[in-house]
């Protein structure tokens, strides 16, 4: 008999498992429509590889993995792709996510597939590839891709392989019936896992409230090295960390993985899926789901195609919506309320619980915490929930982290025992989310700070360089003046400068003009092209990384493209004009000249004004600009432009209003002085 270690705390909620155990696993059949979310697992969502109108066969891959921690998705039956669009999915927030919709043809026609009964001839990498290609992601509820979990670093030695048949949540019996009816397949899957992991020992942990499952598993494991371990029922024994502690006495380090203590854990459902993938070449397209609660007439377990609507499945069990106040995916301890019964069954849907109000009543209002400590007694990870509640209420995040908030596994035992009905775990979930958000914000502002400081530094450096150049020029001019004074004596340096400038201009007009203009245009085209290239490069990397800068970069590239086109056009026009007749060389020079003169006149006028008038003029200009921006904003709002544009305009208006205010203040000061 193996030593059972146990863990701190835990609770014994009413099990309510017998209701759904009265009949064997039933086939839920093929619904007319299947909605298959692209993200049914932890990690990056898969990428659709089919288009609307495509005909697909059962088992055909319809979405590919988009990263290491990602899995493909397969068609659960044959049919036609009806849509690839956002649909509401089973998520507590009730949000919509990308889904592939298949209109089934009822023929359930398999794609050609084949497995390898003699899996021992395959090496570890090939087996992992098959598991990954079959789209297997943690069937126990969390949905972590099985292949990723099994790909441990070669320097880590796995002592113990644990197959989790605990199923400690009340009501759920999916693993129980699986063990009763498909024990042989579980053992076969376990043997494949052993072949991959090569552990010293293999344990299958099952709570003692499942005598039939235990007997079936023991019979199936007869004569093998697999140890079926029975241990006392207690919630949450099925938590990975808790099960590891029960069976091995080891604790997974905080923030670490089971592999750190030489353990790998897989659910019995995953073991069967792995067996199906390797031996039959059958991808994960269905699962066992318990449908239970007083809201259904015949609670039982179904083998159901992924993507089947919950409503379809509930109806198979005799669902009456009026008896059911809320629909829960998962169990009563850790499951979540689904937004509507029309969302699809996914890889992690182990249970649909449709309780009557009397069965799981709405919690009464919370009373004061009397610090009775029942929560601390129940906590399976030895936290002090009553203290953490105190800190969570006061948003004392630092203290929360000191009390190891992030080791909370959110099993809900504390809330369950709390005599004052305080939603403790809900407080911790909210605090965790808030802390994570704060961390992200701090990181962001740190980035901005570094960027800002780098920019300041660069500007200072540029300014210093300019200053140095200016000083050098001044020095050179002084030296020249001195030289002139010593050499020419009566020659006026200003006169000399004027003459030099005149000579330059004459040379330009004499024919150098075209050359320089042409050069200028060519240079402009070249630099713009270069800029476009860099911008495009940046955009590509951003796209590859999935950065949120993509949009901004895209606009940049577009703008640069437009500029390049303009520059090329200007160059082209110029070349045409010049190759046709060398008639208008003076025109651009003249325009430039005019602009220069205008600016100079404006400056001169400025200079002649008193500072007060200057300020007043500036204020007037600012006011005009502000007015213009305001009109633009109003127009934009009326047109219902994009939010971004409106936001940008709003920012401009605000900035200008600020400037106007500053200018007014300055003006007042000047007048006051």
């Amino acid at each position, binding site marked *: 008999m193996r030593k059972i270690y146990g863990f701190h705390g835990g609770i014994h909620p009413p099990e309510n498992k017998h209701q759904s155990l009265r009949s064997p696993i039933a086939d839920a059949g093929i619904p007319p429509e299947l909605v298959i979310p692209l993200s049914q697992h932890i990690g990056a969502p898969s990428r659709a590889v089919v288009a609307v109108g495509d005909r697909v066969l059962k088992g055909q891959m319809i979405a590919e993995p988009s990263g290491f921690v990602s899995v493909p998705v397969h068609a659960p039956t044959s049919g036609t792709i009806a849509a690839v669009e956002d649909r509401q999915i089973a998520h507590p927030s009730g949000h919509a996510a990308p889904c592939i919709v298949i209109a089934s043809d009822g023929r359930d026609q398999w794609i050609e597939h084949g497995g390898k009964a003699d899996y021992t001839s395959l090496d570890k990498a090939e087996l992992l590839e098959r598991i990954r290609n079959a789209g297997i992601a943690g069937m126990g509820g969390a949905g972590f891709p099985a292949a990723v979990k099994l790909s441990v670093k070669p320097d880590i030695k796995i002592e113990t392989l644990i197959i989790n048949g605990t199923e400690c949540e009340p009501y759920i019996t999916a693993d129980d019936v699986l063990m009763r009816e498909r024990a042989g397949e579980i053992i076969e899957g376990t043997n494949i896992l052993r072949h991959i992991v090569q552990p010293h020992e293999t344990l299958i942990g099952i709570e003692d409230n499942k005598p039939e499952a235990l007997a079936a598993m023991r019979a199936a494991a007869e004569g093998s090295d697999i140890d079926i371990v029975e241990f006392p029922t207690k919630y949450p024994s099925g938590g990975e960390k808790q099960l590891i502690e029960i069976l091995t006495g080891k604790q997974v380090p*905080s923030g670490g993985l089971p592999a750190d203590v030489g353990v790998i854990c897989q659910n019995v459902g995953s073991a069967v899926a792995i067996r199906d993938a390797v031996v039959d070449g059958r991808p994960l397209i269905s699962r066992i789901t318990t449908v239970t609660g007083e809201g259904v007439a015949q609670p039982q377990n179904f083998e159901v195609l992924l993507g089947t609507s919950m409503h379809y499945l509930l109806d198979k069990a005799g669902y009456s919506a009026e008896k059911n106040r809320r629909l829960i995916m998962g169990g009563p301890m*850790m499951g*979540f*309320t689904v937004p509507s019964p029309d969302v699809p069954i996914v890889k992690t849907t182990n249970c649909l619980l449709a309780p009557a109000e009397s069965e799981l009543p709405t919690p009464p209002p919370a009373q*004061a915490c*009397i610090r*009775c400590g029942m929560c601390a007694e129940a906590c399976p*990870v030895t936290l002090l929930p009553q203290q953490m509640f105190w800190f969570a209420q006061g948003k004392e995040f630092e203290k929360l982290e000191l009390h190891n908030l992030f*080791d909370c596994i959110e099993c809900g035992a504390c809330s369950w025992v709390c005599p004052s009905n305080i939603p403790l775990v809900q407080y911790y979930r909210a605090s965790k989310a808030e802390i994570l958000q704060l961390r992200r914000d701090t990181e962001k502002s740190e980035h901005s700070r570094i960027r800002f400081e780098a920019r300041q530094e660069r500007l200072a450096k540029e300014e210093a360089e300019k200053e140095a150049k200016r000083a050098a020029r001044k020095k050179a001019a002084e030296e020249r003046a001195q030289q002139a004074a010593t050499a020419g004596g009566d020659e006026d340096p200003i006169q000399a400068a004027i003459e030099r400038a005149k000579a330059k201009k004459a040379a330009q007009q004499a024919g150098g003009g075209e050359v320089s203009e042409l050069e200028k245009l060519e240079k402009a085209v070249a630099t713009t092209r270069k800029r476009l290239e860099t911008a495009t490069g940046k955009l590509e990397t951003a796209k590859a990384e999935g950065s949120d800068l993509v949009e901004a970069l895209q606009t940049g590239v577009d703008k640069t493209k437009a500029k390049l086109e303009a520059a090329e056009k200007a160059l082209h026009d110029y070349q045409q004009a010049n190759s046709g007749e060398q008639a208008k060389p003076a025109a651009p020079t003249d325009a430039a000249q005019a602009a220069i003169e205008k600016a100079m006149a404006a400056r001169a006028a400025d200079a002649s004004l008193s500072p007060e008038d200057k300020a007043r003029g500036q204020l007037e200009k600012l006011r005009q600009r502000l007015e213009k921006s305001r009109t633009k904003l109003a127009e934009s709002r009326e047109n219902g432009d994009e939010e971004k544009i409106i936001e940008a305009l709003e920012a401009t208006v605000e900035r200008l209003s600020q400037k106007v205010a500053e200018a007014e203040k300055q003006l007042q000061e000047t007048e006051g002085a």
Partner: protein
Amino acid sequence: MRITSPHAHGPMSTPRVMLNVLLATVPGIVVMTHFFGFGTLVNILWGGLVAVACEALALKLRGRPLGFYLKDYSALVTATLLCIALPPYSPWWLIAVGIASAILLAKHLYGGLGYNPFNPAMAGYVILLISFPVQMTAWAPPRGVGELPGLLEALQACFTPAAFDGVTMATPLDVMKQNNSLLVKDLWQQNPQFGRWAGVGWEWANLAFLAGGAWLLYKRIFTWHAPVAMLAALTLMAALFNDGGSSASGGSPLFHLLSGATMFGAFFIVTDPVTSAVSVRGRLVYGAMIGALVYIIRVRGNYPDAVAFAVLIMNFAAPFIDYYTQPRTYGHQRSGGGE
């Protein structure tokens, strides 16, 4: 309706916890009534009324819904515990002042149930003990030693104290404390209030409270750590300083375990969750310190009994104990705690 997990809830509720505590005091009250007459019962009836009135007043002033908060029975528990600790046949005003101090000052001024740093019953008791030492140390002689007043006289003692002519007698703890010339053996013979192991009546009352406490432990209303640590520390101290019964003896361990408010304190006061330390290790330290303090104050202090003072002192220390006794969380290295 969106409800997040867990969707299920256990059977325990705060009103049930409080009712269990009330129920567990019954054997002790019965024994006290048997040995000291109806005084304690009258205390509790009158005290309970005042407590509910004070609680309602405080809730009204604080703008809280009356029905919801009165239903937690916490005021009744406070009243019952304080009235058990008061001498039987206390006048109505003494009880009223004690209850008002407990409910209004020690509880609601700090924010109500769950927020009070000090045990309200013990705070009320100490306020009375310091303010009205004469009334607070006037214990009636137990059955068999003196005449027991009837129910009518008990009511009279409470509501028209001037007309009540009761006999009072020093408690065994008092006698033991004042002794400076007699051997413990002689003391036992010369004073009728000493019984088999401790005081007449007192020893049975203590055993009855022990029984009530054991029942609460069985019902898992609290854990064994704090009360057992307190009793163990008290036993240890008494054993260490019990010199075999000289005139300077502090009393035997058994005498201390069954005297005064030892068992009542261990199972009904030290176990008050709001004001005690929270972790297992913390509750061990908290209880042991109270046990040690009870002995020290009983033998060396100015007051014959010490549970109230010891508890209040350790109430002060509870947050400090909590800080240094945070348990090791799953997956963390063993450390000194705190840091």
